């Protein structure tokens, strides 16, 4: 793919000043993400994968290097509402129904009432929650809540979707199902997705590109371009091709730990 990168990071550094001295959360991270790519960030805790995503979202400020989102600084991109962010927890407001939760960003961004209505219905359909708009979050299962939070991030049609371990708290059966759904959703919407995960199969199954990271300091150890086809049924995970990529991810993770 020879497009202008949607997200481009060059020698990005982020050092947190803590009571025990500086901690290098990100060190010399360079990466390009093209339009429509599905990029997973995988690595052990403390490798900076979430921190990198937060830098892209302008929720953290890098201390060195450069980072652009849609050709703008992350701060400008945030103000231009260039991305939807899905957090680890669904974080739905308990005092709002599902439909009203999804409406929250639309209210803030000043969409008209009719437009809000239409968009809420569309994204509810997209995440397979049509008919649940009037329910309160506690009436839904964890998986459904997380789908609602994805719908909320999709509702205002940002081109970029940033997901920070969105399925981390769910059981494996629900997770498999949501992974499949997410791929379909990605195919339908053509969004650029940044996806943080702990799980090797999840990363390999979902991604067009897998970024393997390691801690102390947080850095990229390998970037794997997936050779899997666009169309991915769940049983693709038993093919030799899939296992080979998974093996390479595992090697990358191990390399990062070599001197521990």
């Amino acid at each position, binding site marked *: 793919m020879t497009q202008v990168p949607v997200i481009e990071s060059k020698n990005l550094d982020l050092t947190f000043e803590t009571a025990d001295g500086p901690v290098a959360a990100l060190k010399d991270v360079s990466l390009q993400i093209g339009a429509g790519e599905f990029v997973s960030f995988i690595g052990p805790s403390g490798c900076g994968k979430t921190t990198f995503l937060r830098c892209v979202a302008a929720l953290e400020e890098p201390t060195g290097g450069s980072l652009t989102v849609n050709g703008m600084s992350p701060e400008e991109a*945030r103000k231009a509402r260039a991305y939807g*962010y899905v*957090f680890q927890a669904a974080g739905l407001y*308990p005092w*709002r129904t599902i439909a009203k939760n999804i409406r929250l960003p639309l209210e803030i*961004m000043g969409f008209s009432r009719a437009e809000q209505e239409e968009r809420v219905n569309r994204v509810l359909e997209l995440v397979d929650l049509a008919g649940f708009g009037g329910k*309160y979050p506690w009436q839904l299962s964890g998986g459904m809540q997380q789908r609602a939070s994805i719908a909320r991030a999709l509702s205002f049609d940002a081109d970029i979707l940033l997901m920070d371990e969105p399925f981390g708290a769910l059981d494996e059966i629900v997770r498999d199902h949501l992974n499949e759904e997410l791929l379909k959703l990605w195919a339908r919407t053509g969004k650029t997705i940044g996806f943080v995960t702990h799980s090797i199969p999840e990363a390999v199954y979902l991604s067009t590109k897998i970024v393997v990271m390691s801690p102390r300091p947080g850095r990229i150890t390998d970037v794997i371009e997936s050779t899997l086809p666009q169309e991915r049924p769940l049983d693709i995970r038993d093919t030799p091709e899939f296992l080979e990529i998974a093996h390479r991810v595992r090697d990358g993770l191990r390399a990062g730990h070599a001197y521990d």
Partner: protein
Amino acid sequence: MRTILPVAVVVAAIVAFWYLAAIPMNIHFAVTSAQRAGAEVTPESGAERRNMGAIALAARNPAQWTDSWTQAKPRLPVPHQVVAELWRTTALQHPASKQSLVYHGWVTLSATVVGFAIGTGLGILLAIGIVHSRAMDMSVMPWAIASQTIPILAIAPMIIVVLNSIGVQGLIPKAIISAYLSFFPVVVGMVKGLRSPDAMQFDLLKTYNASRSETFWKLRLPASAPYLFASLKVGIAASLVGAIVGELPTGASRGLGARLLTGSYYGQTVQIWSALFATAILAAALVAIVAGIERATLKRMGLAT
């Protein structure tokens, strides 16, 4: 329904203990009166009785026990006396009469409600300021805490004197003392409530590029509702205490506080106790009303079932 029996047993035990406790409390006067009326009592010498313990005297004069429950000015009135006085001063009096506890209760209630409204409004405003401004957090909070360490009995007369000198009398000074007591729980609860959403919630709104006021109206305020109501229940009870304390130092002639005061001037213990019970009933009713509004509001918000 199964809880009725245990509750009834506890209440009966308290009432029984109360009647028993009234015997030694009132026995000296009961024995003296009985002797004057010509009854046989032990010991016969008044001086000797004065030097005796109340329980010992009660043990030696069981015939006078029932007398200790029927005195006009007992040290400790018994439940049926208090209930009779409550009945006499509410149901059997015109509500506008100065003999009526309804009248006095209304005077205190109006000051309580006005004070509660002022205190709650002030508390919420201060909490909003404290949450949004670091300077206010550091400057207002210590004063709010310090204000509650001053005994209200010490500051109430000063508030009344100062306001009186500028011509403000009647309900307003009492309401201000009442607000002085009730704003604090509201500030503390509301600050906690407005800060209760976790960091992720604030990050989420940041990704929408939401303004401070949007964050306030859409996140902080609704999240604070359960905390606010918990504070309001404490606040309304504190308001009532404030209104009553505000009636004490002026020698006011109206209100439940005035009722307590005149009762103590003239040794009318039954009147004091009935005013105390009226106060407790009023407080319970006010808290119940706030609790009812809380249930309805939280249910409407989807926060309670």
